[in-house]
């Protein structure tokens, strides 16, 4: 077996890198200041700070964040009874949340539920809508009819998908149509039952790579 013992190896000019044109095999730890690889790094396990990793395959969940929608009473207001998109000044805001996407290269999937109910006889139909602060039109609306019964409301669910706007903050909000309580319990007219914290619901945002 041949063997070369040397402290430092440099390229032919004394300043350029040594070229290993047939690959290199290291037993033990290879310690390097920076590694730049044109094609790929394959490892049994990758350790370290992955915050700078980009270009992940499309459709993967990058980040999921949940915010609580508290139980609350609200004032009463309604969206117009016509076929126009509800405006950000209509209805009653009952939830808002500032959000900064971690990347521009993703879609945002929003999912939320809330018990939308009346505590007194003020509505035959109820609804809620999702808004974002730089747009007057609602992004998404859901409704339910609850007249001629003793139902007095519904659990409403909104699912919405939109592209990320980049790494800056915008504010999502939810606005209520006609009802006067959020996440109250269904007890004839809506009432405060089962505990405020347990009867709250969630607003979730998923970032899906594109």
């Amino acid at each position, binding site marked *: 077996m041949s063997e070369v013992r040397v402290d430092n190896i440099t*390229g032919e000019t004394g300043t350029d890198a040594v070229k290993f044109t047939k690959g290199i095999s290291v037993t033990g730890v290879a310690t*390097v200041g920076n590694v730049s690889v044109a094609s790929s790094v394959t490892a049994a396990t990758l350790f370290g700070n992955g915050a700078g990793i980009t270009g992940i395959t499309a459709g993967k969940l990058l980040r999921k964040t949940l915010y609580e929608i508290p139980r609350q009473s609200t004032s009463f207001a309604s969206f117009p009874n016509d076929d126009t998109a509800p405006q950000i000044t209509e209805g009653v805001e009952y939830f808002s949340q500032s959000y900064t996407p971690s990347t521009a290269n993703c879609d945002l999937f929003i999912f939320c539920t809330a018990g939308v109910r009346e505590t007194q006889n003020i509505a035959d139909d109820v609804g809620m809508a999702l808004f974002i602060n730089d747009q007057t039109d609602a992004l998404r609306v859901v409704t339910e009819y609850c007249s001629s019964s003793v139902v007095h409301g519904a659990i409403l669910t909104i699912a919405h998908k939109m592209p990320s706007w980049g790494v800056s903050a915008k504010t999502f909000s939810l606005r209520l149509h006609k009802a006067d309580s959020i996440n109250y319990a269904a007890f004839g007219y809506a009432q405060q039952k089962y505990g405020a914290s347990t009867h709250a619901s969630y607003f979730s945002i998923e970032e899906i790579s594109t």
Partner: protein
Amino acid sequence: MSEIKTTKLIGETGVDAVNFTSGLNVTGVSTATNVSVASSVTAGTLFGNGAGLTNAGGGILLKKSAYTVTRQTITHATFPADDTIPQINEGTEIFSQAYTPSNHPCDIVITTSCRVGETSNVGDIMALALYVNDSTDALRVVSGLNGPRSNIHNYNMILVHKMSSWSGAKTLSLRASGGNCINYGAGGYDTFDKQYFGDATHSTLFIIEEIST
């Protein structure tokens, strides 16, 4: 061009590593048992198990599991009609599942739905609560009202809950209040809930997501 042909390069003492003080340029595959990099690795593509990566950003899905909430008849029981949190011995248990988080510490996000109904006139107020075995208080509750004057005999519940993970196994459970059947079909006008549409197809899911923190 100069060229060295040798099967081994080692440091001067015979046991230390060789220092490449002006960098290293490899054409072909570079194979190492371990690579330790002080600052950064830049690659076109990274392959491999990323379980050891830290600071990859909170909110990443680490594991998702789903369990079935079966169609079933249940004993009728109710949560107290007050503003106290339902207790783990109240209502009727309709589902339980032992769960050991694989990626503790992380967040656990639970999403489930089911239909709480009545096959006979047993209740108007339907509710569903989530529990974990080491807490007597419910973690989360949703409720719905069926309509005794409008011939509605059930309510579709959607429950979402977020909590911190734990070490080892704990048992999550769902308990229903007000009804006497779970995931039965809507029977039609003025008709109580029925076993419609198939047992398996009218079951629902209890989904657990492990989310990095």
